[in-house]
């Protein structure tokens, strides 16, 4: 085995490379950490500034106050509903569609795929879409978060591509054993595709949890807005109370113990935490998903 000695140039490169990546990693991670510190520190103490690496006056007060607001609790229940129900339906329906389109012998497969695909390259735009939602009475229903967002074309394609990698012999032997399509899907193909199911679950789930636009612009009812929309309102309005003026009184009392800014940081952490807890575990799957999705279908 031949060992090639590192030249000085290579050593310089190595040092530069590691220090660059370390600083980039720091710049990515630190902002989240900074928000975490502020959310855990006493609001009035934070006003003095100089908080960089550790909370000075550790307290959970901000989190407790954030959860005391009934509007916020309601917003979280809406977020959880749409994320759980929406993601479940999205994943199931997307997988079914991908499964059917994976069959190369299916008559009309190309036409149906193009029928779906065309909507991604041309759309009616925001306003006709909004008018449609309103005429379907969706703008005053919780289903506005679920029904118009059931499918993403890209996810149908990655499911289809993955199903196609499953050897045909498995299907053939199952057919011989008298297995129907429904059983084939649920008993054989679905369990065999768990990595890809995990990937699209993550994509759909994060999309549902993070979406603030629908709640902000399509929905008028305050009690129908998800946490992401409330977060956006709280953060864009200078006064915390304005965003939650249904219980202004309540907040005036609360302010004695904390500041709007500290509450904001706590609220930001609460909405981010579920994602932080989930995505690292699905990392190896979505990397695979992206690689498969990039293959032209």
């Amino acid at each position: 085995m031949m060992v090639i000695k590192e030249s000085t140039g290579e050593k310089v490169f190595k040092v530069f490379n590691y220090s660059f990546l370390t600083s980039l990693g720091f710049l990515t991670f630190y902002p989240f950490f900074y928000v975490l510190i502020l959310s855990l520190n006493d609001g009035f103490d934070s006003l003095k500034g100089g908080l960089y690496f550790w909370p000075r006056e550790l307290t959970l007060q901000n989190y407790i106050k954030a959860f005391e607001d009934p509007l916020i609790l309601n917003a979280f229940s809406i977020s959880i509903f749409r994320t759980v129900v929406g993601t479940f339906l999205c994943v199931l329906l997307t997988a079914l569609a991908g499964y059917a389109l994976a069959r190369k012998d299916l008559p009309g497969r190309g036409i149906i795929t193009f029928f779906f695909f065309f909507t991604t390259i041309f759309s009616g735009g925001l306003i006709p879409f909004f008018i449609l939602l309103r005429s379907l009475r969706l703008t005053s229903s919780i289903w506005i978060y679920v029904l118009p967002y059931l499918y993403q074309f890209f996810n149908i394609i990655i499911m289809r591509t993955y199903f196609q990698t499953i050897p045909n012999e498995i299907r053939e032997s199952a057919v011989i054993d008298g297995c129907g399509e429904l059983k084939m899907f649920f008993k054989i193909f679905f369990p065999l595709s768990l990595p890809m199911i995990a990937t699209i679950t993550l994509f759909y789930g994060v999309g549902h949890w993070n979406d603030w636009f629908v709640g902000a612009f399509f929905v008028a009812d305050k009690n129908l807005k998800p946490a992401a929309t409330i977060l956006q309102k709280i953060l864009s309005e200078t006064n915390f109370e304005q965003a939650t003026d249904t219980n202004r009184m309540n907040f005036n009392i609360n302010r004695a113990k904390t500041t709007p800014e500290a509450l904001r940081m706590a609220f930001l952490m609460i909405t981010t935490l579920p994602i932080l807890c989930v995505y690292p575990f699905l990392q190896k799957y979505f990397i695979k998903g992206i690689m498969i999705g990039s293959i032209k279908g």
Partner: protein
Amino acid sequence: MKTMRLKTKKSNSHNKKSIWKRMRKYKVLYLFLLPAIVFFFIFGYIPMYGVTLAFKEFRFDTGILMSPWVGLKYVEKFFSYFQFRLLIRNSFLISFLKLLFGFPAPIILAIMLNEVRAKKFKRVFQTVSYLPYFVSWVVVATIFTKFLSPHQGLFNELRMAMDKEPIFFLGIVKYFYIVIVTSDIWKNVGFNSIIYLAALSSISPMLYEAASIDGAGKWKKIIHITLPSILPTVGILFILSMSGLLRAGYEQIILFQQPPTIPVSEVLETYSVKVGLQQGQYSYATVVGLFQSIVSLILIVTTNKIAKKVSDTSLW
């Protein structure tokens, strides 16, 4: 092989008679597709019909279908809007700047990461670098606003420590594009590098070994081996991102927009949200959206054609 051909011939001759029979064989699969077909018809194609609203006067009581036609009234209104050219310029400039800086960034990151031999370091870095991709723009905008704020923003605290005046970064026109491009890269660079890392990992290590024996240094290896190997991937992704040239990313811009920066930050998408959803000028906003959709369609069809000619890759 022969029997295969015979079989297809046979089925071809029976094609017309048996098409229904064949389709019945797949009825469960069509049932699987039925919700998707209904979904794309309702939420994809009905709004496409809805673009006729651009040439109608919207009436609440009758809906789009029965609203009276007004011809090109709103199209003319849009084209003669005094800030029409500004909207186009901003949309184009912001998406162009994002492409110019945001496109090479993940390639460079992937190349650098590919040189890392310490496995643990690599894994931790990757996990951290994907993080911003999964949080919403609301969170990213908040974090940036917090850091750049003139009151207790970390950036301005540092400036004040150096005896400089605090600056309201988000309210100043000349900083707007820097903030937009930086936050876009910050959010997406890690995640976007995945695809290039995959391409890099498929390069044979033999090539590098051979180059080392020939006395090539790190830099030369990157130029002569790494870059040419990932060029096809780079090409495909570049062509794909070209079609988004007029899409500046409305979520991000709405969240970063402050009244003083509107002259440089107002793009077609944000304008359409404002006049349509906030002011209720439905027909007019539909024109804005339609204009954008048509330009996007032209861009994607053109780039696809070019891609087909230049390489074998194409979207359809």
